[in-house]
């Protein structure tokens, strides 16, 4: 099977795998597709510095490359690559023996609005304040809750995809997400109580 560079850019992830196995240079197409997304994801769920996150990202892609033959076509490639990133971050936590602190959660206006409406939290008129409050709340959440919140609202993954990424049953993901929302709301309202009185 042969594809020109334009076709490679538009090919499905799964179609790229046999091409990479026959020519390692084609791995660059997977890297280009996922490096920004995964870098952002790693930063969102960890306390790594940008340099550390880049190192972790490199390890993630090396694992993806080395384990290409393990990829199961019954799974979405994006879920598989996110799973590897998730596992690599956990491995790094263990090595560092540090609790993730979150120092770089980036959030755009749409995401902030989506979280606010989904969790039925007070709507700040000022988008900047709303975003800051949400980011601060996410930072405070327990790691298990933060990760599913990040995957659901920031990475916009479905329940099925989250289940495949963190390797938990869908029902567990669902209840984890419900608990995470409750916890988020509780922390958010506690931290923003004074604003209601001021407002």
């Amino acid at each position, binding site marked *: 099977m042969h594809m020109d560079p334009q076709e490679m850019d538009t090919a499905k992830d799964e179609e790229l795998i046999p091409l990479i*196995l026959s020519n390692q240079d084609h791995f660059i197409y997977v*890297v280009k597709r996922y490096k920004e997304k995964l870098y952002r994801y790693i930063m969102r769920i960890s306390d790594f510095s940008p340099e550390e996150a880049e190192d972790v990202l490199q390890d993630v892609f*090396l694992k993806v490359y*080395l384990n*290409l*033959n*393990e990829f199961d076509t019954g799974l979405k490639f994006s879920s598989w690559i996110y799973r590897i990133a998730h596992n690599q971050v956990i491995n790094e936590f263990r090595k560092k023996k540090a609790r993730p602190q979150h120092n770089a959660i980036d959030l755009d206006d749409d995401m902030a609005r989506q979280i606010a409406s989904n969790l039925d939290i007070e709507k700040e008129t000022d988008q900047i304040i709303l975003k800051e409050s949400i980011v601060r709340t996410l930072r405070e959440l327990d790691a298990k809750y933060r990760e599913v919140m990040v995957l659901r609202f920031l990475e916009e993954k479905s329940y099925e995809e989250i289940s495949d990424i963190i390797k938990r*049953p869908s*029902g567990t993901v669902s209840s984890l997400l419900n608990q995470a929302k409750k916890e988020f709301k509780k922390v958010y309202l506690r931290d923003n109580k004074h604003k209601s009185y001021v407002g």
Partner: protein
Amino acid sequence: MLDNFDQKLLDKIKNEQLTPKPRWHFLLKDYVLWSAGLLAFAFGSLATSMLIYVGLNNNWEVYDRLNSSLIGFILLTLPYFWVAFFALLVVVVYYNVHHTKKGYKYPLAYILPVIFVSSIFFGGIFYRAGFAEMVDGILGETVPYYDRFANPHVHFWSHPEYGRLMGIVAEKKDMEMIIVIDIEKQAWNVRLTEETEMECPVEVGFPARIIGKMLSESEFEAFRIMPGGPGGGMFKRYRRDPRFMPHFEQCQPVPGPMGPEMRCME
């Protein structure tokens, strides 16, 4: 950030001559995982069949004649080794299922009942096929300290002072007296009376459980005689011991008044 990331990554792959692991590597991993899981499941089913065998041969109908409450009887005769072995194998099977490609999709609350029910199903088949009795017999006859870790029946039934005696029939003196060798290798003259209930023919070389009354340090009156059951295999070791059964090798089954019996050359 991520300046020149792609090129650095590709250079690393090329410089270190990294190549994807071959497909057989992952197939082998899957194969080992499934095989270990199936093996653990088979042993788990065997453990279940042992529990069924021990449970069904626990002489529930006579526990009230054994100076023991039902709870006490259960606690004294529960085969803890097989329960623990079964529990361990359930954990191993769960671990293997959970680590298969799609195993994580199934919650513990779904996997555990499936393992339990299928173990009972296959354990029942193993039991019906006679595996449990055979395995118990082989283990009893060959494994050191079998009575101490695998089968509490032997010790439960080895209390002549409480009216429980277990051993191998070494000799039939006459219709009213047999010699039984117990776990301590002590010979007991066991008296049979007209009231003695015989659940099985008394045969030389075969284990038996006896409910009765201790008359002296070496005499026992039998009220009821039952087959050896679980743990009985232990006493078959004495067949090879010339101190107890010097002529067992020459024993032959012959028809007797209470069914077939072993006649041994003196």
